[in-house]
């Protein structure tokens, strides 16, 4: 099976500290994956590398069926290639309406002059409404994003990712600070999204990971410690030692 994203042998260090150490990890098309690991395991740095924010010292990041290297591409180019990222803190544009937020994210040409000449079309409006319905914000399209609740902002951000129509979605701790119902809804949204694309969830919360019911990769000190179903990795002794053991005792 050909892989959507192949990260192999990547190393990056900050001032001598190796945040990522010879990391290799692959994602298939239409896959839901959870990445867990203790603080400082390199989860965020891994996402920084894939999205082009951080350049690795060595290793390769290969994307898509054309085997394109993502290294050397800018953040916006990578995003246009079909990799979407959701940050840990909800970062929506609070001064703008939900519709404007979604419209900005909608998959359309991104050049400044096309954007300047952009006209509203019916098909765009329909797409926005479909996504708004998906994330449960159809009634809030005209509200300013700043007025939304914390959970709604998280959904809006996921909605913006969906609007980008990416082939790979990187989601950083989507459930943080959510109520139980909100979590359930988030799980549903992510699972549905994973039917047509790869979704990678970085998460602390074991309950949430269990609910996702997917393959799990455990990161530790910048490299993969274990990979498999949640039950498989949680029974792995090394994982228990470095992560679960420490985190739950």
């Amino acid at each position: 099976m050909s892989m959507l994203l192949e990260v192999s042998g990547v190393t990056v260090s900050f001032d001598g500290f190796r945040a990522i150490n010879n990391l290799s990890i692959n994602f298939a098309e239409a896959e839901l994956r959870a990445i867990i690991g203790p603080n400082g395991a390199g989860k965020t740095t891994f996402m920084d590398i894939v999205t082009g924010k951080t350049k690795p010292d060595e290793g390769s990041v290969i994307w898509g069926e054309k085997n394109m290297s993502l290294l050397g591409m800018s953040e916006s180019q990578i995003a246009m290639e079909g990799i979407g990222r959701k940050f840990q803190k909800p970062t929506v544009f609070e001064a703008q309406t939900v519709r404007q937020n979604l419209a900005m994210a909608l998959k359309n040409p991104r050049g400044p002059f096309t954007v300047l000449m952009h006209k509203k079309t019916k098909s765009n409006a329909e797409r926005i409404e479909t996504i708004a319905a998906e994330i449960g914000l159809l009634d809030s399209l005209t509200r300013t994003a700043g007025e939304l609740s914390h959970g709604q902002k998280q959904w809006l951000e996921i909605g913006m990712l969906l609007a980008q129509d990416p082939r790979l979605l990187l989601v950083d701790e989507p459930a943080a600070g959510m109520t139980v119902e909100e979590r359930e809804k988030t799980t549903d949204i992510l699972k549905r999204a994973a039917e047509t694309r790869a979704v990678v969830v970085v998460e602390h919360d074991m309950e949430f990971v269990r609910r996702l019911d997917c393959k799990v990769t455990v990161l530790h000190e910048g490299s993969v410690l274990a990979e498999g179903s949640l039950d498989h990795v949680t029974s792995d002794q090394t994982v228990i030692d470095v992560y679960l053991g420490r985190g739950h005792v």
Partner: protein
Amino acid sequence: MRKTFLAQNPSVLWFMAALALFTIMVTLMSEATGVGLISTSFVKTLGKTLCLCLIALAMDVVWGYCGILSLGHFAFFGIGGYAIGMWLMYARTEAIILPNLAAQTIPPTPQEVSDAIGNQIFGVVGSSEFPLLWAFADNLYIQLLMVVLVPGLLALVFGWLAFRSRVTGVYLSILTQAMTLALSLYLFQNDSGLRGNNGLSGLQNIPGFEATPQATISILFFIASAMALALGYLFFAWVISGKMGSVVQGIRDNEARVRFLGYHVESYKLFIFTVTAIVSGIAGALYYPQAGIINPGEIAPIASIYLAVWVAIGGRGRLYGAVIGAAFVSLVSSWFTGGGAPDINLGFYTIQWTDWWLVLLGFSFVAVTLFFPKGIGGLFDYLVRKPS
């Protein structure tokens, strides 16, 4: 589209109406129509103020909407002024010199004409030769093109360099300040080709209109400035209204997020920076024929900071705020410094506003930043929108 755009932005219509009314009133009451309630010099002040409002608009778009606190936009304003000033000065000098030369027994050669004009213009800096910069000074159309091209190109190159290396925030502000400082220092040199610290003068005399009284010329420039402001307002309102506005304000609020949405943030910043620079150049080209003189002191870093002050006091992030700020502060400022404000006698000390105005302005600016971050424009919110 246009209809919906204006319909969505009633404030634009309001502004246009107010500006039109103001322009008509001033025109009718000016000396040009014989009424003379408004003196010619005050018409010039008003015309200049409109130009300042135009550059304040540009500043508001680049800072208030796009989040780039440029401390160098007056450099573009000055370049626009110099570009048009070169033609004005050349053409006017030519108009004076030619009849003199023609009165001689033998008709002048092109070289003699050029020498005579050059001597007249560059005599103050001890030269009579035309620098390369002045190659097209005799051609109004090329100089008008320069008004747009030179600020645009400078902004494009500077912006490309700065944005490409992700210089942001305070760093970018200081870098833009350095740019305008470098330009003004360069122009202060006698061999800069633009008459050093003498600058260009006599710009109020428009070649071809020697017979027209200043009262008429001033009102024509006033109307031209008003129209430029109106067009600028429409243009910027359009730019920031649609999806472009969304992206640009997104960049202001969270640059990284916009980048991860797939937008090439640098291109957008560059677009805004360059477009506002061009508008600043146009504003300068309209301003200096009314001011009559331009010199390198005009583009010292302090001028650009005042620009930021106007926009901040007026209320940034709303176009009419910038216009109000620029008009209010510059008019009040000239009232105080022009001796219009009455001195206050405290018995032991007399406060002369010509001396104390800047102190007042400085502290009130601090107060505005601290207590009214939305500026004067923020007051309109209370008037227009009923508290909900």
